[in-house]
Every structure is written in C-alpha cells, then in structure tokens.
C-alpha cells in the first residue's frame, strides 16, 4: 500500500496564543515494501508526521491516502480499525505495560480483534521464538534489559501481522551494537514483505544499507529525499 501525503499541515493549539505549526505543507509518496527513514533534528516534526500517517492523530489541513483510502476525514472508529489492522508501532520508550508479562504485552493489540485464544498464544510464542525471547515469555516486562524490551516491542508490533511497521526513534535508548542488531531485524522484516517507516537522527539508522530512502525534515518541511 502506497502512502501519499498532499500538502499536510499540523498546527498544535490552533487559535490560541501558543499555537505552533509543527508540519508546514508536507507532500510525500512512500513506496510500499521499502524501508524509509524520516531524518531530522529533534523538534523537526518527525514524530508528528509519523503519528498522522499511523492514524494516531489527524492533520489540520491536507490529505493523507493509504492505498485507495483517504485517511483524513475518517471518523475515529475507522481510524482505530485501520490502525490495528494495518500498522504496527514501535515507540521510542518501548511503551510496554509494566506488571504484565512479556506474553501478555505482546498479545494486547490482538485483544480487541478477539482471535481464538490458543491460536493467539501460538502466534505470540512463535514471535518470541523468532526474536530469541521464548524463555522470557512469563517474565514481567520490567525485568527486561533495553535490548530485550526493544525486541518485545517489535513482537507486539507484529502480533496483528500488519503491512506497515512504524518505528519512532527506535534506537534512541540503545547502544550502537543493539542499534545494529535492530537494523538487522528490520532487514528481515523488510524481506518478509513489509513497509517500514522509521524516524531517526541516529546515523546507525539512516546510514544503514537497510534503509532504502531517507527523507529529511527541517522545521516541519521536507528539505531532501
């Protein structure tokens, strides 16, 4: 599914004295089955743009197409539906729910879809296996190391088998070696036919051979790519 942005704007606190235009007229086309990186300094609007593409928020103006569908203007319910079927998210702070086990965390995005329980457990276990976490399945997530937490976050993003993977500064909390490992996992995901969208200002990410396209953002505008 191709993602197309047409003159997208995002204004925070619109109409108030502290109004701030974080995205100022971005037009883009992101190819399917590619690894694309949004690069830019902190505050350049990477996360804002990513959350609009991932149906976590709406643009103030402009259009976003996901394949045939026009996202901007869809009611909340539909956005949620698209989000959980189409996107998998990996957040900068991992955003795992502490107190729950690794397995429970991974299965969370599937709960609203109510799949067969045994099947869901099997899928989750297979994912854990693939990322070398099978022995941690029952551990509470707060016991995990940074690298392990990152991999649990990837497993959670994959549980609903999404076409598009979105990762916001995934290596910000990892050292160089773990960052390289992460890029290796991205390569394998790319090979399994997924679209990957990463934001980063980490050279390990945007200089990686895995990344096929780099789009540079500056002050809410595209400056390169």
């Amino acid at each position: 599914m191709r993602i197309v942005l047409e003159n997208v704007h995002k204004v925070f606190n619109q109409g108030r004295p502290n109004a701030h235009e974080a995205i100022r007229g971005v037009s883009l086309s992101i190819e399917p089955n590619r690894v694309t990186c949004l690069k830019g300094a902190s505050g350049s609007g990477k996360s804002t743009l990513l959350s609009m593409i991932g149906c976590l928020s709406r643009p103030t103006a402009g259009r976003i197409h996901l394949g045939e569908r026009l996202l901007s203007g869809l009611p909340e319910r539909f956005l949620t539906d698209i989000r959980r079927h189409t996107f998998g998210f990996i957040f900068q702070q991992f955003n795992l729910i502490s107190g729950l086990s690794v397995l429970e965390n991974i299965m969370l995005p599937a709960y609203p879809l109510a799949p067969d329980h045994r099947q869901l457990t099997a899928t989750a276990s297979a994912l854990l296996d693939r990322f070398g976490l099978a022995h941690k399945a029952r551990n509470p997530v707060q016991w995990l190391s940074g690298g392990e937490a990152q991999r649990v976050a990837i497993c959670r993003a994959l549980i609903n088998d999404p076409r598009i993977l979105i990762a916001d500064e995934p290596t910000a909390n990892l050292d160089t070696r773990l960052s390289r490992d992460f890029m290796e996992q991205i390569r394998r995901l790319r090979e399994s036919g997924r679209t990957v969208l990463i934001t980063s200002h980490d050279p390990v990410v945007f200089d990686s051979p895995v990344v096929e396209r780099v789009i540079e953002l500056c002050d809410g505008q595209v400056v390169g790519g």
Partner: protein
Amino acid sequence: MGWLRHQRYLLDFIIASLLRRKGKNLGLLLVYSLIVFMLASVMLFTHALKREMGQVLQASPEIILQRIEAGRHALIPADYLRKIGRLRGVTARKGRLWGYFYDPAVRANYTLMVAPERRLADSEVIIGSAIARTRGIGPGDYLTFRAHDGEAYSFRVRELLASDTELFSADLVLMSERAFRVSQGVAEGWYTDIVLSVSNPLELAKIAEKLTLRLPDTRPILREEILRTYDSIFSWRQGILFVLLLGAILAFVIFAWDKASGLSAEERREIGILKAVGWETGDVLRMKFWEGAILSLMAFLLGYLLAYLHVFHASASLFEPVLKGWAVLYPAFRLTPVIDGLQVATLFFFSVFPYVVATIIPIWQVSVTDPDAVMR
C-alpha cells in the same frame, strides 16, 4: 462467539491489572467492604429488631391502664377492676404486678414481674439469661435480694427464660405474687397496672375514652402508641449510627473522587498505549468499567456477608455501646434473619453505582483524546 471472546480478553486483562496493583486494590477493597459492612449491619439490625419488636408487642395487651398521681404512674387499687364496669368489646381484664430492682452487685436494673401462669413457688424465680450470665448463676442456684425493708431474701432459680425471646426478657425476673408483694412492699389490693384485651381494634378509641371518663385519675395506653414510641426510639438510634457512618461514607466519597479526578500519570500512559496499539475508546471504557464493577461488587458481597454474620450470628456485638443504652444488660439475642430486597437494592445502588461512575468519568476524558500522546 466473537463478542464473548472479546469480553474474555478484556476480563483477562482486567484481572491481570487488578493483580499487578495488589496492595492498592486490596486496600481499596478493604475500606470499601468495611463501609458496606457498617451500612449493611445497621440496616439489617434495625430492620430485624423492629420486626422482632413488632411481633412481641403484637402479643401484648391492647390497652394498659395506669393510675396517675401527681402526673406520675402510681399503683392502682384492685377494685378499679370492678369500677371499670361493663365495657362492650373488652374480652378480658386483669391486674399486673411488676417493677424494677436495682442490683448494686452488677449495677444493673432488673425487671421484676409476677407470672401467675408459671405457678412459681414463693421461693422460686425464673430469670433472663443476661442476668444469669452477669451473675454467673444457673438453674438450682440462689439469687439473693435485699428487699424494700432491708431484709435479704433468697430465691432458687427454677429455670432460665428461653433465649429466643431474649431481646425482651434478658433482664427479667419472674416470681410469685406473694414473693413480689412481700419483697417489694406492695400491699394486697394494689396492682402496678391493669391490662384489658380488646378483640376489635376499631373499638379501642371508644373504650379508651370511656375509661378516662369513668376513672378520671387513670391513663389508658394503647398498644398502637407503644409501637409508635418504640419505632421512634429505634429510628432515633439508627439515626445516630447513620450520622457516625456519614463520616466514613464521606471519607470514601473523597477517596473515590480522588481516584476519579486524579488518574495517575501511569494510568494515563497505559490508556495511551492501549489506544495506540489499536484499542477503541469503547474497549478502554469497558475495561475501566469492569475494573470498577468487579472491585465494588466484591466489596459489596464481602461487606454484606460480613454484616449478615455480624448481625445474625454475633448479636451485632459491635453496636453494643450504642444500643445498650436502653438496657444495661445487653441481650445476647439471636435475631431471625430477614433480608429485605428493597434494602439490599438501596444499599447496592448507593455503594456500587457511585464508585463505578466515579471511575468512569475521568477516563472518558482521557480516552477521547488523540492517542498520539505516547509518541512524546
């Protein structure tokens, strides 16, 4: 099928999240149950008590006739029984002998009563079980009184009064007429009061009116009035308990409100995560609803069950200090268990409902906001 599975997943998650804040939720459950327990105890207790009292009074005479001297209850001459004359509707009349006796040994008042139907020998008494308990005596033992003239009289305890009537007989001493007159100094030809039985309640007012006309120095007391007085005494005591409870309830409301308004940053973050990974606002709401509902239902059941045991199997012993005022010898009574559906519903409504609502309101505000907060 899918719907059921969906609810099961939600429930799984809720139980997991209730468990991971074990300390906090247990504390909450405890406070909550305690309040339900107190409220339910008062409700069950007063309700059962009123019923019991109504039943006992139902068996008591319709009219009690007292003689008044200087505005106070005085002994009534036996020939008043004759002076009453013929009264249509009165099926029986008799003089009663009863009084109070202060026992300095246990610093309590006994109620002395003559019970001709028990055919007691002049040296025998039957006593209520509270007296037996406090004095540490039983059948065959002796109870000694200092009589009105300073003489000491000993009575053999023939039996104890059945404890199912203990609420009203706890402090009772039954004796023969002669023993009563001699020990209390009530001369032959005098009674404490006169009781009249009337079969048709519609005639009561008429009869009472005639009595005051024929015997101007007497006061007829209708059973109806006694019922009303008891009722108001109990309502009043119940009122005190409720005022005490109000403090507890208030604390709870503040507590719930605090929970309601102050969604912790942690909870806010979690809701954001759930929404970001694809939960709908409705899912989050349902989850929080069930969380509150499970907790308050458990508290309700636990509190109510404890209250039931407290009132019907432990003689409402926690209320002793408040309710004891009306009898120094606190009866160890067994109330007949009664559960009033409306009462349960009221209690349920006022304990479970506000809490569930309080937990839902603020979460709604959070869950309608954009889920992109987790990106920051």
